[in-house]
């Protein structure tokens, strides 16, 4: 007979939970937990907006002709959809939201290293989002989230494009501030007794993410400033009619924007590494390998950007270098996937919503990863570049990956953040609808791309109509799937079952304080009683005794 470990004790166990008054979420609060929730709620609002834009795009694509909106507005719809989802949903949610809420709690710190900087970083995203949404009244940007010149310089929507650039500059600044804050916090504010290899893997992921964001984001900012000059004051950095080079913009843009994919997915890898062990009651398999693989993805991630430009007229030797670097990213990513699967193997899987979403993440992210390897191969990429195959690939990575991971994290940490449990039944309904909707929407897009349908088109060859109808039906299911979650989250926040301090019997430090945590997180000093993933240690001792 074996027993589960008792929850880690700390001096603040049993302390009165923090009751944050509602208006504090609308203030310039410097509490990392308030800022984390501000990020999560705000970004989720943008997720709903981005989702509405995506639904409009899919309904337009239900027929081969552009009969719902005119082609110019259609271009604005997918441009704003991409921009909102990347810059105002996934990046703020995973780094700003989960990162801010969890990192100090996980390393036993009272707050982030620079609390005011933290608040500034959050409050920069609000004007960025409002500006971007406001641009719908003056004609929003319509040149894709990549905004390639010369189209973005010659666009009819000058004002919208300028607003778009300003908005990206604001979120980029926010991202840089947040990255500095995370690096300093993780490096210098770990509690006594916690070395780098005994901190939770989410912190490793946040470290890698922050390094990447810090190195890459300024390059994007540079590209945006130069693009702004070309657009507004007629310089010719990227404008070929004045001797500029549009391909240089692509290099600058992708130097940030490919690492941005890892900024969006690395924290989610961290979330998955935190969710799987407590819900399968096993230690994470290969802690060090997972930690190192995050850093390896960070390093390799800086040298793969030109795989977005295999058809852009880059020299052949460059294509070969970037092809090899891109394919190599599959190795550390594979290490993570195998480690998660090995963690599940032989566990006692509690198939509740957090683990369902985590397993859904692995199974769908796998598809995105494998199609990523296909795209890494230059010849394969050249055929499917800028087609629906690519759209399918990055939605499998960013929806099947990031969004599933975010949901896994929300179901896992909701009790800690709000002091209430989410309803499990509606969580499962939410999972099933999301899973079906996702595969129905994005799975068939692989076929569309391979068969010859380019992306970013309002009108397409009628031969692709039947598959597009399937995708549109899937997208509507996906849109509907958010309803049970939103209702569940709002209802449970106010009326849900009271959550204990440690409902999952987990071992990381955030579960040693009250739910929600008190100001400054612990009454006395937090105590490190076990490693973050020492599940089953008593079982191990029993087994060793039995062998002896």
């Amino acid at each position, binding site marked *: 007979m074996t027993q589960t470990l008792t929850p880690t004790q700390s001096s603040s166990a049993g302390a009165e939970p923090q009751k944050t008054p509602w208006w504090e979420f609308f203030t310039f609060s410097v509490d990392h937990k308030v800022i984390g929730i501000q990020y999560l709620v705000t970004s989720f609002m943008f997720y709903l907006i981005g989702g509405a834009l995506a639904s409009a795009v899919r309904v337009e694509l239900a027929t081969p002709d552009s009969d719902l909106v005119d082609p110019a507005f259609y271009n604005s719809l997918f441009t704003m959809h991409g921009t909102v989802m990347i810059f105002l949903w996934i990046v703020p949610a995973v780094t700003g939201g989960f990162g801010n809420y969890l990192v100090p709690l996980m390393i036993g710190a009272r707050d982030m290293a620079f609390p005011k900087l933290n608040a500034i970083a959050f409050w920069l995203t609000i004007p960025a989002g409002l500006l971007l949404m406001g641009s719908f009244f003056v004609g929003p940007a319509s040149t894709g989230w990549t905004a390639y010149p010369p189209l973005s310089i010659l666009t009819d929507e000058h004002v919208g494009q300028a607003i778009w650039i300003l908005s990206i500059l604001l979120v980029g600044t926010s991202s840089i501030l947040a990255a500095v804050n995370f690096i300093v916090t993780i490096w210098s504010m770990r509690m006594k007794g916690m070395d780098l290899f005994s901190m939770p893997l989410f912190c490793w992921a946040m470290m890698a993410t922050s390094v990447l964001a810090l190195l890459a984001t300024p390059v994007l900012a540079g590209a945006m400033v130069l693009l702004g000059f070309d657009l507004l004051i007629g310089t010719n950095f990227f404008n070929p009619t004045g001797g500029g080079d549009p391909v240089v913009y692509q290099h600058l843009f992708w130097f940030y924007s490919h690492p941005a994919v890892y900024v969006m997915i690395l924290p989610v890898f961290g979330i998955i590494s935190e969710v799987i062990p407590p819900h399968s009651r096993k230690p994470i*398999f290969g802690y060090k390998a997972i930690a190192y693989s995050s850093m390896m993805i960070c390093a390799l991630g800086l040298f793969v950007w030109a795989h977005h430009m295999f058809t852009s007229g880059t020299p052949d030797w460059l294509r070969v270098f970037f092809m090899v670097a891109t394919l190599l990213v599959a190795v550390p990513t*594979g290490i993570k996937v195998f480690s998660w699967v090995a963690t599940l193997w032989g566990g006692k899987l509690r198939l509740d919503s957090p683990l369902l979403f985590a397993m859904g993440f692995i199974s769908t992210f796998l598809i995105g990863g494998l199609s990523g390897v296909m795209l890494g191969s230059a010849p394969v990429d*050249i055929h499917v570049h800028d087609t629906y195959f690519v759209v399918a690939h990055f939605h499998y990575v960013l929806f099947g990956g990031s969004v599933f991971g975010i949901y896994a994290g929300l179901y896992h940490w909701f009790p800690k953040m709000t002091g209430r449990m989410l309803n499990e039944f509606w969580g499962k309904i939410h999972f099933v609808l999301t899973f079906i909707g996702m595969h129905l929407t994005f799975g068939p897009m692989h076929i569309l791309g391979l068969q*010859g349908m380019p992306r970013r088109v309002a009108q397409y060859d009628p031969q692709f109509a039947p598959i597009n109808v399937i995708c549109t039906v899937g997208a509507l299911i996906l849109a509907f799937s958010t309803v049970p979650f939103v209702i569940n989250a709002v209802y449970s926040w106010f009326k849900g079952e009271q959550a204990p301090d440690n409902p999952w019997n987990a071992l990381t430090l955030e579960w040693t304080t009250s739910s929600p945590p008190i100001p400054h997180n612990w009454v006395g000093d937090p105590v490190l009683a076990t490693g973050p993933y020492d599940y089953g240690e008593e*079982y191990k001792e029993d087994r060793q005794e039995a062998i002896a």
Partner: protein
Amino acid sequence: MKVNNKLISIVVIIGLIIAASIWYGRNNGLLPVAAGDEATLYDGLFNTILAIAAGFFLIVEGVLLYSIIKFRKRKGDEADGPAIHENLTLEIAWTAIPTVIVMWVAIYSFDVYTAMQGTQDLSGMAHGGMHNAVAHVDHAAHHESGGMHSNPMTSKATLASSNNNGVMMAGVIPSEDSDVVAINVSAMQFAWVFNYTDEIATAELHVPVGKKIRLNMNAVDVLHAFWVPQLRIKQDVIPGRETYLEFTPRVVGEYPVVCAELCGSYHGGMRTTMVIDTPEDYAKWLKEQQEIASNDPEAIVASRPPSQMSEQEYLAGKVAQMGMTSKK
């Protein structure tokens, strides 16, 4: 005995996964017809990588499904699982095996890539770094071209090809080769214009089967990308510099030419047709075009500066010309 049974099961399952993956790689039916030599090379690579991906997919998804059924928590069981933290042998294996596989994929891809695109001498930066020469000649042409094969600097056989007989590499632009049909392509919002000679400009691309075709591409306004899905080739067309694309059509028929780079409002409508003709039909068509051009030089839409036209005028002009130059 029990161990043997387990081992046999694992071997059988892995064998089945490999067999299923190979079968899927060969029978996926995901790609449209391969209408050119490059497409045949491409399909071999694509199907191989797809088979490898299918193998990994089946293994990981299989383990996940098995775990859900086998390892789900039973009612009343509140115990933890075993405290297994790592297994170095296993971890080395699952790092080393994918590393070897992706490196092999990289080498194979590079091989196919060079066969499809042609190698570029590093000094090729002088060509704007965009020289995509394909010198994929069949045996007959290969013997005709003589010296090219014997020159180690400009030729290389490929391992990758499913028809690796006579796949040749050229490190320099073979523009002097009389066997190459050179066509100038002009891309503009939202039309393609193909210039065969100074006189002939058409909105529909005609190429003779079996000849190497070389497209010299220019963009008038913004970025475009020339793509024929049945040829598996794509190249951005960039204002301010010339880009190239070479291919050898093999299957007579009509195929779509698609713009793959977002180029403005009517980007989705920037489509035309590529007709792969028999040599006789091609000669006949060229003659017809010459007659049309000599009778009515104003018919060439491209003769008017695009900056002076509205989008509607472009599209109207294209539609009119499509009707005029079409074979149908």
